[in-house]
């Protein structure tokens, strides 16, 4: 399978601390890859290095054969790369529906053209479908900031998929979400993977979730890839167990 995303020997150091230390991996089209590892293992720094939030010290990132190393988040979003953040990142004063429209409207026409576009930028129906998919219909017109953490997390994730990106990097989508919503989230992601056909890279601490969702898992420890492969194989890896539980 031709790689869709290629991460080649990415390093990020803060002085003497090597937050990411030579990480390489590939993601194929439509593939879902999980990234696990104890706190402080460099997962989010790796994400931020891939996604232009911080500049990697060295290494390369290629997306569909193009070198995207150090590109700004804006340039990446225009190439079809979406993301969610570890903490909630919704537009608190906008309604749920407006949050979803805002997440995709900038991909419709030109800046000048959008001034004269319909208020919903022609995305109303799509936003309603996403609201339906994420079971948010009863709160669609409420300000996102007035909703529960779990509901905001669903909005946050739904926003990342509104523009049908080709690659989405999800940073701890289950963090702070109650168990019933975790199952719902799993189902929604599987459905989006089928319908939109994009590739996902998912950082997560919830092992059940990641083992169920991702056919390929990477385990990071101290900035390096410790193990990778099918979930069962990684889960049974002695070094991985030691990294999580100690000797």
């Amino acid at each position, binding site marked *: 399978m031709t790689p869709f995303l290629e991460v080649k020997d990415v390093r990020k150091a803060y002085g003497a601390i090597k937050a990411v230390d030579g990480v390489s991996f590939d993601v194929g089209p439509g593939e879902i890859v999980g990234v696990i590892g104890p706190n402080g293992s460099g997962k989010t720094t790796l994400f931020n290095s891939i996604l232009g939030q911080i500049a990697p010290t060295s290494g390369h990132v290629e997306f569909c054969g193009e070198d995207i190393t150090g590109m700004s988040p*804006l340039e990446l*979003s225009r190439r079809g790369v979406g993301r969610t*953040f570890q903490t909630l990142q919704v537009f*608190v*004063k906008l309604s749920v529906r407006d949050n979803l429209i*805002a997440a995709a*409207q*900038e991909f419709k026409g030109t800046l000048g053209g959008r001034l004269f*576009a319909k208020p919903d930028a022609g995305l109303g129906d799509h936003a309603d479908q996403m609201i339906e998919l994420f079971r948010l219909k009863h709160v669609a017109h409420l300000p996102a900031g007035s909703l529960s953490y779990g509901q905001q997390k669903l909005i946050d994730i739904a926003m990342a998929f509104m523009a049908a990106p080709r690659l989405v990097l999800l940073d701890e989508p289950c963090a702070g979400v109650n168990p019933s919503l975790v199952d719902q989230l799993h189902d929604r992601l599987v459905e989006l993977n089928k319908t939109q056909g994009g590739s996902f890279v998912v950082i997560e601490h919830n092992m059940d979730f990641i083992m169920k969702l991702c056919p390929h898992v990477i385990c990071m420890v101290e900035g390096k890839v410790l193990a990778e492969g099918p979930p069962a194989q990684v889960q049974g890896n002695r070094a991985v167990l030691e990294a999580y539980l100690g000797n």
Partner: protein
Amino acid sequence: MNAQMKTGILVASLVVVAVVASFAKRSDVYLLTLYCVYLMATFGLNLTVGYAGQMSLGQAAFFGIGAYVAAIALKAGVPFLLVLPISAIACFVVGLALGFPALRVQHHYLAFATLGFNVLVYLVMRNEEKLTGGTFGISGIPRPSLFGVSFDGPLAFFFFTFVSLIILAFFLWWLLRSPWGRAFAALRDNPIRAESLGVNITAYTLLAFAIGAACAGIGGVYYASLVEFIEPGPFHFSTSLTMLLAVIVGGSGRFFGPVIGTIIIILLPELLRSTNVSWLKFMQTWYLAVFGVAVVALMIWLPGGILSIGDRFKSKEVAK
């Protein structure tokens, strides 16, 4: 309240203002016109600060640039209909330039950057005598005359300003309802997320400053025609603070926030000062102190501005 009711209330309010102005004495007509002029500037500031989340303490500078461009051009015989876009474009361009610091700094740092800009513009107005008349200012600024109709009289000029304000407000309402309005809100609420979703935060930040500045410039044009004499005083940074106060007191990021806020800062002190109610006579000397206390109390009780009062009661209902 449905949209039809809201539109009905709005139209009725506009009619009431027009009727009140028609029967008001000359000084009150002047005050109402001054209110309309300031509202043009605070509407623009609300876009910059309230909708796009960019702090600005430089709105009076744009108000001044608009006024001086208008004064110079009108005295040179340039038609008012040409002066208006010239002033708006001049302020738009300067506003774009002032937007650049906002790409690097935010919040109180940005406030000081814009304040510095206001001080700079004020000094140019005061010291560049050949262009601005310095502290002597520019006098004899003519009032507009369009298609043979003169707006020289106080009431005629009020209605001219009032209609212009309605047109400007409609334009801003339309703009904020468009996807641009949503992008401004995204920029205000979470610029990092906005950028990751393809929002060009550079473009929208600059536009927020430029459009807000153009509104102030338009207000400045009407101000110059209203007072017929301008000097640097009204464009001091203290006016920028007053304008920001109007936006915050009314309800920052709410369309009608400046409408209420500008009443508080322009009309309320005058109403207090000129009251004839016997037990309120003390206001004639104490009006500024009472005004100050009222603003402090309001900010403690309603930090989201007067128009947030509905939300406050709603949240109390939810809490019950």
